[in-house]
């Protein structure tokens, strides 16, 4: 196990290096002169030089990169171009808890609905419930989140116009604001997890030890929950890492569609004002979250399935 953990940590260091380097380079290669853009039409060579030095743009790129990484390690994401001199973290920080709670809620919902649904579908595979629920789950998985968001919003508008109870289509803060963005964000992952759970359960239920359990007179509940599900869960744990990535990128869209003030929303505003350091920081933060989550899932996988630790 320690060796497995070490190897996986080294991999994380490589991933973090790639993320920071590529993010830095994209910003570095960005066309145009950010300092001149910041100064607008003013021509003031002294101020120009001062700002350039303040943003570290007078140094060679490898020094800039080193400075960038040291800064990030100390929690300094750099300064905004749009709001001269203001730290990027100031602009991003209100969004972090919002995005985190939205993402966690969506992830929790997709696991809590997707996994049980997959188990139920596997109990009577190819039955009516199986087919109906799995078709629905395939649709949720295949249809992009913003289309689902659009359909949900259309539904609310129709409900509203007919004086029926409805939910708000945008905003954040009240509990009822959570329902639609969480549903839209959870839909794809839920569909994926449900189908994966079903396939995994069906594979496990065919194994000999399950027949043994039935033969020994174990009840259905014990066979499904105790014997089958425990092994069927292993492949599901492995996709939790990629699921986090899916939710993270999905939050960009969902936050903007439902006007949820998370970091995806902040990033799109930064795109419109060409505030590159903010865009870079959001990309960096999200990539970090995904990298760390995939490390955690890999370690969990190693704990659940000893074969993973010893091989390769």
């Amino acid at each position: 196990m320690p060796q497995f953990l070490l190897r996986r940590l080294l991999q994380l260091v490589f991933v973090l290096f790639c993320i920071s380097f590529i993010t830095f380079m994209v910003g570095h290669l960005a066309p145009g002169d950010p300092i001149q853009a910041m100064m607008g039409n003013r021509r003031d060579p002294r101020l120009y030089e001062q700002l350039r030095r303040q943003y570290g743009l007078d140094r060679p790129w490898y020094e800039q990169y080193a400075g960038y990484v040291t800064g990030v390690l100390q929690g300094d994401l750099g300064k905004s171009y749009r709001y001269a001199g203001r730290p990027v973290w100031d602009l991003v920080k209100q969004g972090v808890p919002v995005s985190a709670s939205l993402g966690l809620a969506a992830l929790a919902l997709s696991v809590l609905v997707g996994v049980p649904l997959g188990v139920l579908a596997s109990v009577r595979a190819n039955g009516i419930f199986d087919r109906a629920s799995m078709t629905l789950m395939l649709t949720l998985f295949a249809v992009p989140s913003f289309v689902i968001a659009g359909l949900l919003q259309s539904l609310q508008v129709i409900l509203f116009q007919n004086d029926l109870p409805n939910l708000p289509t945008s905003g954040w803060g009240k509990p009822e604001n959570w329902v639609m963005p969480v549903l839209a964000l959870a839909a794809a992952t839920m569909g994926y997890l449900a189908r994966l759970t079903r396939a995994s359960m069906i594979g496990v239920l065919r194994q000999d030890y399950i027949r043994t359990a039935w033969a020994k007179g174990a009840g259905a509940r014990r066979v499904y929950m105790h014997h089958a599900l425990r092994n069927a869960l292993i492949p599901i744990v492995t996709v939790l890492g990629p699921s986090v990535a899916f939710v993270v990128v999905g939050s960009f869209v969902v936050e903007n569609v439902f006007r949820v003030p998370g970091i995806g929303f902040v990033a799109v505003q930064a795109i419109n004002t060409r505030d590159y350091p903010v865009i870079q920081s959001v990309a960096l933060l999200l990539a970090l979250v995904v990298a760390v989550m995939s490390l955690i899932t890999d370690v969990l996988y190693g704990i659940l399935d000893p074969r993973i630790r010893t091989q390769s």
Partner: protein
Amino acid sequence: MLRRLFRSRVVLLSAIFLLALILVALFGSLFYAVDPSALDVNNLRAFPTPAHPMGTDDLGRDTLARLMMGLRVSLLVGVAVEAFNVIVGAGLGILAGYFGGWIDILVSRTADMLFAFPGLLLAILISAIFGSSVGGFAGGAGRLLLVSLSLAVVGWPLMARYTRGQTLALRERQFIESTRALGASDRHILWRHILPNLAGLIIVSATLDVAGVIVSEATLGLLGLSAQPPQTSLGKMIVEAFSYISLNWTQVLFPGLVLALLVLALSFVGDGLQEYVERG
């Protein structure tokens, strides 16, 4: 051959639907000659009427005409990205798998670096930062080229990794070794034996991938990073219609439905192709 490909009715229906969408995107404007940029100020946010079969947006522009324009953008970007993935991704993957050595190291490590970014994040970053400077280039074509390139940067590593693995397995097969023993050059083996054997698999994975690319383009469009006015994209149409959804919900519904059906049809056709290629 066709009968076996269309064994499943869903695949056949999807293929017909897909063909119809492509024809509408390419030639629709010949039969429905409404200017997608013309403003009908008396009919803002209209519901479907005979004059505007799918209604109008908040500036009074005809939704059916704009939908055809958006569909063109989606299909164009999808084809461009897959062309890049096949030529560059599969090309590098085959070379890496066949020759090994430093080519393999270079290709595999570059792919690993790009894999470090989750999903679309890198494409969002690239198209956000370079977007403003290519906007004016070639009347909007620069923007679409950038979107295609940023999606290709995200997409090719997967194709390269897949073809590399397939090539590695193929290289050890006996018929390749016999060919080599007969004195065939690497070039001959690559063109005459490796490529024809992988072509089916490459086409299948490109077809399965293109649905994802179209959703990605729509996502970038939604974030304001794809086609710019007067061009439009399905994602942009959807996000613009969100702002007046309480007045007219059909304007979110139509582009959303077209996108969803397009993606589903592509997935079914891809699955059908996969079954056909794998079972022979």
